[in-house]
């Protein structure tokens, strides 16, 4: 860089140009050797930053194996209760189950079917009133290769049957939305990020 012929552009003008790919000054930048040299410097910096981040992530993940498991164990995450759903019993008793438990049940039922992973699950309707109609709305991720209408029907039946056993909800409908498709299962051992 020649200090006697400073073009007057500052590094942040060039940073903005690099970040956005556009600048009102693009014409000057394209033809100014000083700006081009600075741009090259910024690009090298960005490349080095990506390498450093990659290194940092690799060492953060592998140093003291089990740090994350220890941390997760210490968190003691509690599941969410949601609304309280009444159950008929002896009239003198207050018997109920939580909405969170019912949603977990729907998840488990869905997950046990081949090719299905349950996403968000909502119980729409007044579950706190015995006998009130309730619609179960689930988002589902399906694996390739399962015909979706059949899968949806299988899921509906399983959910209705499961809820009939474990709850007293008046299930008016089970609405299934396929929100995601997953690739076929990878060969054992080749699964990405499968270090568990």
């Amino acid at each position, binding site marked *: 860089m020649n200090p006697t012929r400073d073009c007057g552009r*500052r*590094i*942040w003008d060039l*940073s903005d140009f690099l970040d956005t790919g556009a600048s009102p000054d693009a014409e000057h930048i394209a033809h100014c050797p000083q700006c081009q040299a*600075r741009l090259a*410097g*910024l690009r*090298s*910096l*960005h*490349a*080095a*930053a990506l*390498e*450093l*981040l990659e*290194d*940092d*992530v*690799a*060492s*953060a*993940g592998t140093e003291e194996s089990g*740090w*994350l498991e220890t*941390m*997760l164990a*210490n*968190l003691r*995450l509690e*599941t*969410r209760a*949601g609304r309280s759903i009444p159950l008929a019993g002896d009239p003198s008793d207050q018997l109920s189950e939580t909405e*969170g438990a019912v*949603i*977990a049940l729907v*998840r488990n039922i869905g*997950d*046990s079917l081949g090719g299905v*992973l*349950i*996403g*968000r*699950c909502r119980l729409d309707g007044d579950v706190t009133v015995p006998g009130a109609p309730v619609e179960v709305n689930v*988002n589902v*991720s399906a694996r390739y290769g399962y015909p979706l209408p059949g899968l949806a029907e299988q899921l509906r039946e399983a959910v209705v049957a499961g809820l009939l056993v474990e709850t007293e909800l008046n299930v008016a409908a089970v609405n299934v939305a396929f*929100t*995601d498709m*997953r*690739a076929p*299962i*990878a060969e054992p051992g080749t*699964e*990405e*990020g*499968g270090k*568990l």
Partner: protein
Amino acid sequence: MTRSNPPAHRLADAPDALLAERAGDGDVAAFETLARRHGPLMRAYSRRLMSSVAEADDVVQESLITAWKEIGNLRDGAAVKAWLMRIVGHRAVDAGRRRKSHGTITDQPEPIDKAPGPEQSAVTGSARQALSRALAGLPEEQRRCWILKEYGGQSYEEIAQTLGISAASVRGRLARARTTLVTELEEWR
């Protein structure tokens, strides 16, 4: 053969958006899968923002607690990684403030990797090692801005909000940090 997979394995290839939905519904296994997936990145980020490994891990832990509480309100589950990183950024800055207000530490705490340790000697002489040294020499306020931008992927406005300063100050600090870093990388070459 017919034994069902343990939940963690079943979720291993589930997309972030689905895991975020489940975690929002209270599925601990889904949340833990997200934590395993993005934990190393969160930790790497936190380590560059904090001045000791122990502090950095405290920040990651606090961030996971916050994330578990808040994930039900996350609108776009596909953006959960960026969201987790924003939480780490906020928590790290808060922790830095708390430390300062206790006033037990000097203004310029010793960065984590000022000197290359034995395990780092393999990369000595690389551009990233030169960058690591140059970063360690930056004033903390500049280093934080740069890390929030380059590691955290935050916009000027987000950094300004995280640090409680103006976007113009962010721009200035970033420019100074980049000028120094570019110069030091060029000298190294």
